């Protein structure tokens, strides 16, 4: 008799990659609706109870498209103690950090007070979420670092929030979203870039957000799958705006991170920008160098959702253009399009590039020793 079987408690395949990695896009969630109240003045608690939150998006109770899985999250990511996916530190430690040997995890909270019409409420909620990130996450696990969430539509209050957090080692970047009221290069957002540059903090632009504009440049599509693809279109116009409004020229030490919108499109956008810039340079004389130069010098890219072309050589061509020193590995935990660290990079990558991809680039960019 050599039969052994037991009830399986498995939530995913066993650890295959034991090398330390960084995860540059983790989404912590609140366990309850009122979890931020301890960090909010009474005045705003009452405001939320009476008026709720008024976003730029019209006629909106929730996200405009239903997501593929509950809370757009992995179905195995519900914490055992209850609450939404991503709301339990201990479960995140077990399911993500320990299992994958994550040495640096960058938190990007979503749905937190950005893109709200009432700018005072927006600023109060963002500040609350930043306190909450320290209290609930970064002070409890040194591997975790927070992004400073700012009331993006009001550049001045956003800059004030950045200055207040500058120098606090709990924070490693400023967080913006790709969909805003205007393209991200516009002047209303400049105080954010100025404050971030002064503080030496990269600005991460995460796909998503509600700016009140249709989800694609050609209007409202029928399907969620079109919103998913639309993230990269949106990020492309945000990046073009940053280049062409001269943000990189004005803030030469500014570092931008493109988060969760792919990177396969980077070369073609840069080539196109360079070509039209040669012909229309006089329209934007403040853009002093070919657009691709700014992009290659001042932009980093998180990997999730990792590009997955049929021919792996195509992927390497793209990465070679972007630079192996510019990619930051990310899982997007606990969201449903999570990338498994051991499965995203095909064989045939040198040890040095692998190390940079999984850990080295992130540590350098975020200043982690």
């Amino acid at each position, binding site marked *: *008799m050599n*039969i052994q*079987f*037991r*009830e399986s408690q*498995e939530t*995913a395949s066993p650890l295959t990659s034991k090398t330390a990695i960084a995860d540059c896009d983790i989404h912590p969630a609140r366990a309850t609706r009122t979890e931020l109240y301890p960090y909010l003045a009474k005045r705003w608690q009452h405001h939320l109870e009476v008026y709720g939150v008024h976003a730029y998006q019209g006629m909106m109770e929730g996200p405009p498209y239903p997501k593929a899985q509950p809370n757009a999250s*992995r*179905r195995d990511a519900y914490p055992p103690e209850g609450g939404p996916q991503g709301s339990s530190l201990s479960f995140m430690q077990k399911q993500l950090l320990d299992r994958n040997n994550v040495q640096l995890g960058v938190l990007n909270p979503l749905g937190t007070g950005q893109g709200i019409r009432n700018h005072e409420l927006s600023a109060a909620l963002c500040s609350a979420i930043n306190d909450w990130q320290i209290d609930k996450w970064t002070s409890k696990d040194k591997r975790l670092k927070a992004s400073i969430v700012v009331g993006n539509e009001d550049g001045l209050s956003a800059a004030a929030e950045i200055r207040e957090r500058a120098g606090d080692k709990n924070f490693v970047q400023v967080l913006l979203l790709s969909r805003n009221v205007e393209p991200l290069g516009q002047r209303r957002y400049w105080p954010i870039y100025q404050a971030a540059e002064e503080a030496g903090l990269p600005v991460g632009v995460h796909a998503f957000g509600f700016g009140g504009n249709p989800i694609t440049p050609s209007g409202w599509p029928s399907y969620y799958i079109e919103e998913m693809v639309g993230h990269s279109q949106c990020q492309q116009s945000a990046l073009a705006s940053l280049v062409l409004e001269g943000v990189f020229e004005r803030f030469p030490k500014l570092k931008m991170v493109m988060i969760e919108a792919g990177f396969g499109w980077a070369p073609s956008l840069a080539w196109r920008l360079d070509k039209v810039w040669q012909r229309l340079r006089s329209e934007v004389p403040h853009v002093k160098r070919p657009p691709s130069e700014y992009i290659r010098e001042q932009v980093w890219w998180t990997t999730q959702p990792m590009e997955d072309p049929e021919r792996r050589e195509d992927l390497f061509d793209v990465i070679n253009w972007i630079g192996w020193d510019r990619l930051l590995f990310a899982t997007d935990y606990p969201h449903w399009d*999570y990338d498994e660290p051991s499965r995203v990079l095909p064989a045939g990558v040198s040890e040095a590039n692998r190390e940079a991809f999984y850990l080295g680039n992130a540590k350098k960019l975020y200043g982690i020793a």
Partner: protein
Amino acid sequence: MARHVIAPVNELPPGTRKLLEIDGRPIAVFNIKGEYFGLMNRCPHQGAALCEGPLIGLAQSRDPGEIEYTKLGEIIRCPWHGWEFDIRTGQSYCDPRRFRVKAYPAHVEPGASVVKGPYVAETIPVTVESDYVVVEL
């Protein structure tokens, strides 16, 4: 091919599944309307525990606007990225040529036969009266 007794039939009613580890392999056994199917509980895409996903049907379309929804309760949807697999065969629907989950034959045997066989599981007290779900590995 070893055979493994995994449960008395009344512990695996129609519409339910049981996740197990047999010889170190994660396996799920499903009861679909009285038929039994075994499937490797590991998604060939990125390795999620596939069989923790929901059971759905198969949406197909001949023409835009015409949707046929069949195989209700026979398609497992991965809890991570939502790839769909046929429980009967392990076939994938988004990339059938490259991806398939390993399927293991499962069926019911009467108690009398499992007691006699060389494949009686020690952890299940096998009685002659009941029928048992058996997986071949």
